[in-house]
């Protein structure tokens, strides 16, 4: 009886942690990716004022999510995202369109990569 209750408790713990971590990462990643798409579009249109406002929204959201992400993913991934955001800020101020677009795409890739890593997939197991 004791063993079965331990098994059930452990399975519940794993399922709960999986759900919480997946929802945390996926929810945040979707929001940041959407905002990055908006930022990308505004840069394409040369609308830098709107792009700046997009950027500050992303930073605000990222700083909120970062703390929970740090408990779930390797800190190296978080550092990469921080690095990209710093680069984007500088290119926005300089209004360097080409570099800005490439850095936004790279940041999108990093966010997507984190999302892919958290999912329960065959390639993540092996």
């Amino acid at each position: 009886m004791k063993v079965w209750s331990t098994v059930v408790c452990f399975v519940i713990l794993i399922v709960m942690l999986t759900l919480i971590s997946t929802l945390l990462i996926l929810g945040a990643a979707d929001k940041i990716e959407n905002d990055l798409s908006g930022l990308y579009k505004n840069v394409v249109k040369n609308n830098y004022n709107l792009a700046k406002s997009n950027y500050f929204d992303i930073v605000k959201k990222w700083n909120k999510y970062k703390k929970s992400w740090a408990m779930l993913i390797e800190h190296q991934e978080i550092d990469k995202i921080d690095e990209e955001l710093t680069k984007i800020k500088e290119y926005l101020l300089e209004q360097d369109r080409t570099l800005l677009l490439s850095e936004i795409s790279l940041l999108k890739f990093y966010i997507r990569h984190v999302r892919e890593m958290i999912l329960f997939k065959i390639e993540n197991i092996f």
Partner: protein
Amino acid sequence: MVITIFFRTLILYVLVVLVMRLMGKRQMGELQPFELVITIMISELAAVPMQNTGVPLINGIIPILTLLFLQTLITFGSLKSDFIKKLVCGSPTILIAKGRILEDALKKTQYSLNDLMEQLRIKGFFNIHDIEYAILETDGDISVIPKSQKRYVTPADLGIPTKYEGIPISIIVDGKIKEESLKCANLTLEQVLTEIKKRGIEDIQHVFFACIDPEGNWFVQKKEGKGK
């Protein structure tokens, strides 16, 4: 950074100690192969997030808890099913039967004759003639059954009647009375006080150690520099 590592170490140490305790006493004694694997893995898993602050603590905690879960499950399975026990622990192998060394068993277990002789010497048997059976247990230890003429003599062999021997019960340890032991020995606090006063000690706090054996003999030692 330093304080982070300090706290991570603290958390993981407490977790590993807790896990080892939950795994039971066997984990600290002779290990079965699967237990040895789990113990090695746990120590490795705890070490990585301890020193690398870039790795989330959960990356160490979840695998450790998973191993505890697996060990609990395997141990339970071994208790309930002989098949599972045989599968994960193997089965004992007889290396010497009726005084004869079994060559096939030595080959099968990859146990050399020198290893066998060494283990027998460690067990206190220097002459192969003295041994009836030697069994290689699943935890790698060897059990030896000597020939009846070569085993140690017992009171039963000599026909000597013996009295019941229990174990002494610790009543006071480092100035603190153990309530459970009092119940176990059917003693009252007054009886204990009487006993220590007989030995010139006024207060329980002045007693370093006191125990009583099944025959009712007391051993009392007072703390250094306390009482008279």
